[in-house]
């Protein structure tokens, strides 16, 4: 009698342990029409597969050793695309963001995204010409935000799509072994439209759900700007005095725009109620 009771008690105890742990609540998987969730694009900056650290030196395949002091860029016109090709275009008025390495601004936060399964993300690097021509009426506070992040030109009015600055030394025998400053300011001007858009595949599906955050972790490769499909040697772009390099116009920006198409790729996607990236 005792034995039986003990056994029964033991079995019951064991069962309750199991039962309390199993959870049939399946509120995460359903896609409810009309519901919205959040997503973010987290930009993790790098140079040819190594992490970008401001102040560190990197040598590219052009033989130039570059020390990056500043890297900011404008991301805009974000679109999330589903497997069937249908897409969600984030509201234009809020669809302009600034990524800044020095300020630790790496995240594009998106709200009120229709729940669903997204397989690609598309976005632009810089400000599209159409938006720019709409002038201040359309851009409003984005000009102020860009100005505060050194992403505007005021001598030739426009936005800097990429602000990439630092110093460089030459490792080949050009007869120079000093650190010279360089500035690469990518942007459009009234003659050339250098705005470009890229569409990236997501390695796993971004599942936007209510009360959840889908985090798309993007790796950038800044090296491709000067050392991409087309090579741009800083040495070849020295000013008349040979004291610095300023790449802000002309053919170079067209090359950089082309190179920048390979600047981004999605490393991985986190789904679920997990925490944001820092």
């Amino acid at each position, binding site marked *: 009698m005792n034995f039986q009771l003990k056994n029964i008690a033991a079995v019951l105890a064991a069962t309750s342990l199991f039962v309390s*742990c*199993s959870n049939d609540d399946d509120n995460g998987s359903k896609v409810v029409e009309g519901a919205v969730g959040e997503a973010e694009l987290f930009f993790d900056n790098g140079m040819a597969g*190594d*992490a970008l650290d401001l102040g560190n030196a990197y040598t590219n395949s052009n033989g130039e050793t570059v020390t990056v002091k500043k890297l900011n860029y404008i991301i805009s016109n974000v679109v999330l695309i589903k497997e069937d090709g249908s897409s969600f275009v984030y509201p234009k008025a809020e669809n302009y963001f600034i990524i800044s390495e020095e300020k630790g601004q790496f995240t594009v936060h998106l709200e009120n995204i229709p729940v669903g399964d997204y397989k690609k993300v598309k976005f632009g690097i810089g400000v599209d010409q159409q938006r720019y021509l709409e002038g201040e009426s359309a851009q409003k506070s984005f000009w102020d935000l860009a100005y505060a992040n050194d992403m505007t030109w005021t001598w030739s009015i426009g936005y800097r799509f990429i602000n990439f600055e630092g110093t460089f030394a030459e490792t080949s025998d050009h007869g120079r072994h000093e650190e010279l400053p360089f500035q690469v300011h990518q942007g459009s001007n009234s003659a050339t439209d250098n705005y470009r858009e890229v569409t990236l595949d997501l390695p*796993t599906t971004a599942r936007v759900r209510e009360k959840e955050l889908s985090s798309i972790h993007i790796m950038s490769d800044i090296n491709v700007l000067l050392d991409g499909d087309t090579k741009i040697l800083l040495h070849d772009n020295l000013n008349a005095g040979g004291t610095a390099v300023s790449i802000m116009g002309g053919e170079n920006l067209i090359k950089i725009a082309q190179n920048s198409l390979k600047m981004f790729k999605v*490393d991985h996607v*986190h789904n679920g109620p*997990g925490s944001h990236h820092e």
Partner: protein
Amino acid sequence: MKKYLLLLLFISQFGFSATITNIPPPNFKHYLMDFDDCDACGCSASGGGMGFSSMLDKNFVGVRYFNQSYSSRDGIFKNSPWIDENFNTVQLWARIPVFKNFQISALVPYHFHNRELSTGRQTIEGLGDITVLGLYTVYQTKKDSTVFTHMLQAGAGVKAPTGKYNSAASTGSVNPSFQVGTGSWDYLLAAEYVIKKQDLGFNAMLNYAFKTENDQHYQFGNQLNYAGTFFYVVEREKFTLVPQVGLAGETYATNKQYGEDIPDTKGDILFSKVGLEAGSGKFSVGLNAMLPISQNLTGGRVEANYRWSVNLNYSL
């Protein structure tokens, strides 16, 4: 005595599979079959341990501590820093015989893990996944006087999601196993074969875990564990020693979320292992260490450094 030893060895080999501790079977009165359902590298999730009592008394209680050291790359870049991850488990286990040739064993782990991410120290602790396993002796050499004795055991079991799985704990790092539980019901199959001649024996063990999807729609990949161990029984009047050496390996299939494969989560590893157990009267102690020989875990982003364990058993 030898027969019992044999049985012990046999049993201890059983849960051995690569789980967290991968403790070599044999030995002696209490075998720590460390049957640890190690999910994707790190296997901290279940860390089960199967223990069998001595032949003198099949009922026993034991406690064991084991430590696993891993390094993982904290970041997505080639030059992202490698951080150390320390997985610690304290385990209680008991063994209950049900009827002739059939035993049930249960494992209750408690985990406390830590690691230093670039964003700060992260710790996780709590009850792990409880494992219950049933084993049947399929064949056993009866005659005492044969040169070689054999034993074959097979069984099945289940691991319950008593340990909490929280995706946030492993978000932001490359190691998906920094958890105390898998959050899923997992099902196990196991088989073990021991061959012995006088004092020297060899134990071969194989087991396979079918993992299911948890309520956060994450599913760890199925896992195959295997081991081969040589052991030698040194029997004296007042005590017995069993030194042992061998190899153990683990293979993990790809993890999935919402049924979709997650890249770079499968892996495999091969360890060399060495250990010693000593017993006297109702008590026994064991010490064991494992070092990796070759590995490729989570796409090369996690590396196992070593594992070691110590245990104390008391037969009832």
